[in-house]
């Protein structure tokens, strides 16, 4: 797998040694290109702007939010945090816990299902393989709402609406996860190794768990992260399925809080502080994980 090396490594190689045997032109110094650098930095600042704002705004007290300049820090962060925690007996932290539960458990199960299916599709030849894969891929095209309404009605038939399960189950199968699983498995698992395992008398399950899973590890981390973000960010399904706000994930909880803020503006500071706290874990996760994992894997990059 590529990507684990830093992006400069690959390009540095041909650039560093000035091609031997070729007549040297005038030495070209690697000057910084000012305009392109400025464009890139501007793009980065644009992307950081709302995040920087929410960090500042979370420090503002109620009256400061609408009166002081946007990026002037306020004096109320501790109060805001206290208010948020106190709000309806700490329901905010319950939403956070629910989000962690839905996204964590959901992504774990989703990764397992994607790994099974991806491995099955990559390693075996059987009738219906391409059909299965193509049918699965059309799932990517499905607008979530065409699924969500009947899913809700069917869950209601099974008496499962307004439960944790109703949000967890429909999100386990991810067509994109299966697609990634197949691509990674095709690239990372040499057929000779599978054959060698069979010759040594290992069962198919043993070959999968002992040989394939370790080889697939970077890909599985990617699928896990992808699904974690997808479920963490999901709004429509829990919004439709759940009525009891004790079971809400973060997104639906903050949405209802914002909606009430229209009549009680004092809630706005809670929404802002809540938004900051909801953004921090995922950003931290990405900052930590990018040291040993590459973003490139997310788009299915496997070739070196």
């Amino acid at each position: 797998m590529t990507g684990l090396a830093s992006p400069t490594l690959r390009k540095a190689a041909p650039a560093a040694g000035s091609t031997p045997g070729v007549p040297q032109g005038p030495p070209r110094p690697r000057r910084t290109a000012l305009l392109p650098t400025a464009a890139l930095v501007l793009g980065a600042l644009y992307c950081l702007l709302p995040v920087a704002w929410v960090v500042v705004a979370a420090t503002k007290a109620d009256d400061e939010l609408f009166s002081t300049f946007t990026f002037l820090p306020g004096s109320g962060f501790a109060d805001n945090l206290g208010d948020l925690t106190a709000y309806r007996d700490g329901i905010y932290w319950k939403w956070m816990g629910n989000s962690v539960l839905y996204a964590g458990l959901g992504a774990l199960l989703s990764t397992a299902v994607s790994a099974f299916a991806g491995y099955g599709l990559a390693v075996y030849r059987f009738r219906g393989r391409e059909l299965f894969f193509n049918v699965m891929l059309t799932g990517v095209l499905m607008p979530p709402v065409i699924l969500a309404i009947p899913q809700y009605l069917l869950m209601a038939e099974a008496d499962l609406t307004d439960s944790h399960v109703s949000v967890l189950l429909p999100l386990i199968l991810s067509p994109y996860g299966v697609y990634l699983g197949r691509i990674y498995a095709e690239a990372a698992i040499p057929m000779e190794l599978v054959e060698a395992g069979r010759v040594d008398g290992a069962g198919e399950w043993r070959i999968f768990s002992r040989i394939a899973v370790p080889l697939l590890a970077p890909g599985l981390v990617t699928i896990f992260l992808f699904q974690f973000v997808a479920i963490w960010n999901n709004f429509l399904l829990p919004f439709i399925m759940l009525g009891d706000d004790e079971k809400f994930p973060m997104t639906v909880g903050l949405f209802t809080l914002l909606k009430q803020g229209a009549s009680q503006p004092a809630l706005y500071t809670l929404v802002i502080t809540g938004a900051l706290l909801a953004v921090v874990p995922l950003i931290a996760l990405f900052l930590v994980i990018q040291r040993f994992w590459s973003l490139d894997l997310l788009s299915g990059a496997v070739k070196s």
Partner: protein
Amino acid sequence: MTQPPKGARRAYGARTAPYAHPSPTTALERARSAPYFFLLPAAVLFLLFFALPIGYAVWLSFHKVEIKGLGLGKGAKSEVWAGLENYASALTDSEFLASSLRVLGYGAIVVPVMLGLALLFALLLDSQRVRGRSFARLAIFLPYAVPGVIAAVLWGFLYLPDVSPFHHLLEKAGLPQPDLMDGGPLYLAMSNIAVWGGTGFNMIVIYTALRALPAEVYEAAKLDGCSELQIALRIKIPMVVPSLVLTFFFSIIATLQVFNEPMTLKPLTNGIPSTWSPLMKVYNDAFTGGNIHAASATAVVLALATFALSFALLRISNRRTTQGASR
């Protein structure tokens, strides 16, 4: 697991060498049923949470509720065949048409701007002479980790006149301050959220494709005296067309399905009707209006439109790539 499914016999082994194992039959038997075992969880979940709901939605879209007498008591309401009635009313519904037009306008801004920026940033990340690349890569990707609802909350506040730095600056300059969440500016405000949230992911997809290109390709061009800009325009962009098609594809699908952002901005303004996007219209019909049959028909129309668009795009891109190959 005990009986190998029919049809597995011929297909298995197409790719693998014959066995050197002392008892090949049992291993073969196991290997034949193994793929179905690995695919079982995905298949079951697909049937339960994709196929069944879709089938049910289609069924609902062809039915309606008929009320007998006064509609009181059990059995007074029954679901009867409606034929294409729901579809006819969905396609002529003025709210649905208005929401579709809004989303087309919104998409006409979001898709080109987002992909243009994604391509630009990817090319800049791929250039040796640009500084601060690893910082920028992370910063631009960051919004991917921010849920759409929260992105809309953040930008929504930044659009409020009392909070916004833009209004602050306009006020200082003595310029008129537009209402960003109504009328024409609303499209820009809404598009901005999508562009902010989506550029990073698309940038990574394109950048990954750029990095997969062999470096020798540029070396020759550099020796011939091509500038970085020429290399980008003449070599890099044509070579990443497949990933541009892919990002285009996903962006269009995501645009048609926009829901979270307008839904979240709605409480902050009077400028967003509850049927702003087609998905909001479907949601509104199903859960506020209580007409699941009409909502299902609209949802099916949306799904069909998505499929039609996807296949058209795939055909165009396939034709282009095959043409390119034959040249």
